């Protein structure tokens, strides 16, 4: 198989990354059936206690941990031990996977067929695979893929099967189980199902955590779950969920294993299968009418070209090294380890920080396609009001400029080296022809072709295109985010004084910490981004001031425009809360109400960004306001929101640059 270098190490600032290999190439040249039936003998964990799937269940049911909780539940509820035991057993039954090689082989066969039709290539970094193979033998392994599509976990298992690696057991949401047949198939390919929420259910938690830990500790199989908890509809990484990460780290804290290896995996799709589905979901619009049947729909999906997939297996992260000097494991010395205990403050903050670091690792190894840059440019162009779009050669020029900028910022960009830029651009555009329109040598987003009746309907149909586009732009957000925060800070700050800019930066950083992955408590980030901009010559930093250079103007405009939709979105939500929120506004009503408000403003032309219609942005801004105490949730069944109008107002003004980031505000934040 030919492996091609996607990355030439010209810039010393760039990280060394592995080469990719296309696994579909071999599939296209040899028998899928033979592949599905070939001998499969993966290397296993050296401390593996050979056990059958059945013994796994009894190990869980007979564990001290579960016994303790069962008796606790009995004491508290007065139920009989047998009764609770029965419940535990049925919870486990509902949860447990039934990994079967035959099912895996079935998937290996069918997925080969499906993948070959859908994708041009599936590229995997082989060195990452080799590292994984090493580490599987040494320590229990946790696989942490990014989550952008339903495809992710089938793809992961498919890859591991292809490379003859131990098949993972995968934590999946219960919603899959609704699909009777599919659920069981997934179960037999290694999925285990967990309820989305089980708040106070001690017994459920005990069964669940013990099940995961037992599999992990005994090296039964690598455990796989999604740190982000759910598929990101926006292609932005989601704030990581800590529950499962806590569970898989626990055996290390308690000394039950020497170490646990966490392997972040970045899966990037050139075209996401669920593209428009996500946009509609974010807009609260029902799915397009499936006029005939789902079957035809599926065939339509199958006939389209979804480009390529890049899967990057990151450097394994040792929990032991992460915890070095951060977690005092002696805290578990004085209570028997099987008694469940709420994680202490230091453990909690350690797990949280680790989760952020891992998501950042996923982001950094995410391969970006030229289209991601084009989407960013087209969106900015569209907003700037040029109804006729942008000339193709101008777009190419801008794309080349942005390519170089993004590489300076360390982006993992997959830009074909030996192809003329114009070809790269046009082939990207043609792959995404559903989103863009080229006419008379000018490119613009494919808006306004709908047969909508009302202006509102037309707006929403345009929004679907824009949000789809934005989701591609979002893939590159993590590259530009930190410099962009600085650029916006310079923009909003009342003067060029360093201190002012810093205040403004910290304010934005704090404001947006529900929106983006900003590692908690790392303020030195400011200096890092300083460095980025300074080294590219965009900024000049003197003793007292931060100045934008002549050359840097273009960069800064681009960067501020990148963040602008979010700034505006947050402002709109603030305005909504000040103007429209009634006493009785509940959390549940919030999204529809704010959406209505935004539509009104968009139609009236008072808002520039259609993408603020995204419910993701609205939810995040509410979460930020709740975190900052500008909005409070009144305790009660309904979850009524109480708005601190003065504070929300001042936040809105600060975001808009109308109000200087006062020290007082910062102190409060």
């Amino acid at each position, binding site marked *: 198989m030919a492996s091609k270098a996607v990355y030439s190490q010209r810039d010393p600032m760039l990280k060394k990354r592995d080469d990719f290999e296309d696994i579909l190439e071999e599939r296209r040249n040899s028998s899928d059936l033979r592949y599905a039936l070939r001998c499969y003998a993966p290397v296993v964990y050296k*401390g593996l206690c050979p056990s059958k799937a059945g013994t796994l269940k009894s190990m869980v049911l007979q564990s001290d941990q579960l016994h303790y909780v069962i008796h606790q539940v009995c004491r508290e509820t007065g139920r009989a031990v047998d009764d609770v035991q029965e419940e535990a057993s049925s919870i486990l039954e509902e949860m447990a996977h039934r990994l079967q090689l035959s099912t895996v082989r079935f998937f290996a066969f069918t997925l080969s067929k499906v993948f070959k039709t859908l994708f041009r290539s599936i590229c995997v970094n082989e060195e990452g695979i080799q590292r994984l193979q090493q580490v599987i033998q040494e320590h229990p392994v946790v696989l942490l893929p990014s989550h952008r599509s339903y495809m992710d976990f089938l793809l992961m298992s498919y890859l591991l099967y292809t490379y003859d690696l131990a098949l993972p057991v995968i934590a999946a949401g219960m919603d899959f189980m609704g699909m009777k047949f599919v659920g069981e198939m997934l179960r037999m390919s290694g999925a285990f199902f967990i309820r989305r929420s089980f708040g106070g259910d001690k017994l459920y938690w005990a069964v669940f955590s013990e099940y995961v830990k037992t599999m992990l500790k005994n090296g039964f199989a690598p455990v796989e779950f999604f740190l982000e908890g759910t598929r990101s509809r926006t292609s932005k990484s989601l704030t990581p969920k800590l529950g499962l990460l806590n569970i898989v780290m626990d055996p290390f804290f*308690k*000394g*039950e294993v*020497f*170490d646990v290896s966490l392997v972040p995996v970045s899966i990037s799709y050139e075209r996401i299968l669920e593209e428009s589905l996500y946009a509609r979901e974010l807009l609260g619009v029902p799915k397009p009418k499936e006029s005939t049947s789902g079957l035809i729909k599926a065939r339509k999906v199958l006939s389209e070209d979804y480009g390529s997939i890049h899967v990057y297996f990151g450097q394994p992260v040792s929990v032991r090294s992460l915890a070095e000097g951060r977690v*005092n*494991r*002696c805290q*578990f*010395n004085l209570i*028997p*380890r099987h008694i469940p205990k709420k994680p202490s403050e230091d453990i909690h903050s350690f797990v949280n920080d680790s989760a952020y670091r891992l998501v950042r690792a996923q982001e950094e190894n995410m391969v970006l396609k030229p289209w991601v840059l084009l989407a960013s440019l087209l969106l900015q162009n569209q907003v700037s009001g040029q109804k006729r779009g942008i000339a193709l050669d101008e777009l190419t020029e801008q794309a080349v400029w942005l390519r170089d900028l993004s590489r300076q910022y360390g982006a993992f960009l997959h830009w074909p080296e030996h192809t003329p830029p114009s070809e790269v651009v046009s082939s990207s555009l043609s792959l995404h022809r559903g989103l863009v329109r080229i006419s008379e040598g000018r490119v613009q987003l494919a808006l306004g072709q709908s047969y909508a009746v009302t202006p509102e309907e037309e707006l929403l149909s345009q929004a679907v295109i824009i949000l789809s586009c934005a989701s591609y732009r979002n893939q590159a957000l993590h590259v530009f985010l930190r410099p962009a925060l600085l650029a916006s800070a310079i923009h909003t700050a009342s003067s060029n004084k360093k201190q002012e800019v810093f205040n403004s930066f910290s304010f934005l950083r704090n404001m947006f910490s529900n929106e983006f992955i900003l590692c908690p408590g790392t303020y030195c980030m400011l200096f890092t981004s300083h460095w980025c901009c300074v080294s590219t010559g965009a900024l000049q930093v003197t003793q007292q001031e931060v100045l934008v250079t002549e050359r840097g103007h273009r960069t800064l405009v681009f960067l501020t425009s990148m963040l602008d939709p979010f700034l505006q979105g947050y402002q709109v939500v603030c305005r909504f809360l000040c103007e429209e929120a009634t006493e009785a506004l509940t959390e549940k009503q919030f999204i529809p109400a704010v959406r209505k408000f935004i539509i009104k403003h968009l139609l009236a032309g008072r808002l520039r960004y259609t993408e603020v219609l995204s419910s993701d942005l609205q939810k995040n801004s509410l979460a930020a306001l709740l975190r900052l105490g500008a909005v409070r949730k009144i305790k009660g069944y309904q979850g009524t929101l109480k708005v601190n109008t003065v504070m929300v107002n001042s936040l809105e003004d600060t975001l808009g640059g109308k109000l200087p980031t006062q020290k007082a505000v910062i102190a409060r934040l």
Partner: protein
Amino acid sequence: MLYISTKYQIIRKDFPFYLGKTAHGGLWVQIKNLPGHLPKESPSHVFLQEIMKWNGWGYSDSRFLFNKKGQAEFTGKRYIIIGMIIPGLKDWFECTFGASLQHKTPATPLLNSSAVQPPTLNEAFVEELKSTGIPFSQDAEDRVFRAHGHCLHEIFALREGKFGRVPDMVVWPNCHNDVVKIVELASKHNVCLIPYGGGTSVSSALECPPEETRSIVSLDTSQMNRILWVDEKNLTAHVEAGIVGQDLERLLNESGYCTGHEPDSMEFSSLGGWVATRASGMKKNIYGNIEDLVVHIKMVTPQGVIEKSCQGPRMSTGPDIHHFIMGSEGTLGVVTEVTMKIRPMPEYQKYGSVVFPNFEQGVACLREVARQRCAPASIRLMDNEQFKFGHALKPQVSSIFTSFLDGLKKFYITKFKGFDPNRLCVATLLFEGDREKVLQHEKQVYDIAAKFGGLAAGEDNGQRGYMLTFVIAYLRDLGMDYYVIGESFETSVPWDRVLDICRNVKARIVRECKERGVQFPPLSTCRVTQTYDAGACVYFYFAFNYRGLSDPVHVYEQVEHAAREEILANGGSLSHHHGVGKLRKEWMRETVSNVGMGMLKSVKDYVDPNNIFGNRNLL
């Protein structure tokens, strides 16, 4: 009356290399006086020093070496294993460490007195001491001999002929009153005293603090080695604290008694040292640890003599003052006399061993034995690496028949029973008591073992296991001749954590060695040596080939430090019986809490406000 302890040399009758038949009963067999070693005009202590290595373990003439054929043998006339060939050792040594007999690192043969710092003397103290008539010396050899214990870095430095701060003089009190006089004089003239017993410390406890500017006097208790009385009605003996273990046991044996206290260092360690470090003996299951054995302690402190007024077997009189003394590691005073429990010598003794398919099963078995409170006098579980080590120490078999038998056994265990030779492990057992009970007890233990897949593996294996304990210190010296350094350390841990701590500490050692540039995989092995109701004592052995390292001792210390951190993080204690000394005192505060530390400090401040006992151990 005996007064020179080392006039008698002993042989363990249970030594596997013993050729003649023995009757069960006495543990120690006395042999004739050493020829040509009559005390000259010099005091007896010099005698002891003359027959021991100054830069290694044990007697000067007793050591392992590889002969011209590359076979290992043991020299000297003291242990009966002289002349025995140990064919497996070379291969094991070379395979385990990647060492080679071609690459030698011999020790400096002679002590170079001129390299020793000249003594800092407190003239007034010396003058007054002279008038008491207590023997003392300022000789360099005497001082160097008492400047160290047996930590790796101490021995390594000695082998290279390097000396740090050493005591400025040595005194040999002959009795309790001599000690009182010395302590009074030291207090009066502000001299630093460091008590010295057998010198077997492995916690840097005997190291002179380099920052000490006062004159340091090593107070050698070796002349206080008499049994003052034996009380057969109460089964107690009143003994001077300088007596070493083997002498105490042998002398008591002569009248049909024993203390049963057998720490691995008992050939050389002293009663006072046991008390000062909270020692533990291999047969504690029957006789108890030192805190269970002492009835009365007399200690001389700068504030005067501390002792209880009676010998009641248990008292409710506030915190037990013995517990300020036990484990005080020479920071409060000198233990001079101890009343100890004694027992009639056991009628019958029997070794045994059990092979388990793996270490996990072995630990489970020991736990069950502890649960049923039926532990034999000693029960120890070696891991697979140590089993192999023990195997390598098997002497050459004399007949074809024995070697055939060995082959058959091996076949039975690995092929017929399906034990994996790279996973199986062995427990060694020692039963003691009257014959019938021993046999009954034995059956009970073997029955439990069988439930955990254990197979009885004979007395020989058991004996060899215990031998390992006594020769391992000599083996370290052999390793040090060939670029291999190592040491052991111990901890105690609750039962549920035993397996975890063993796995994690061993893995940590391997990992740390790798990270610190050790070129060859280290030997990282452990054994469970004691069982308690609520947990066990675990011993780790760690050694590596240091070729290619510029500062091997530093690397060694870093790895040991990391291993100790790992022990603590896995719920292990700072020490089960080695003590804290200076080596582990950085962890004392987190071990006993701030208040606990304050308590201990306030005791020190009251008892010894001028820090006369200035070895700076523990706190």
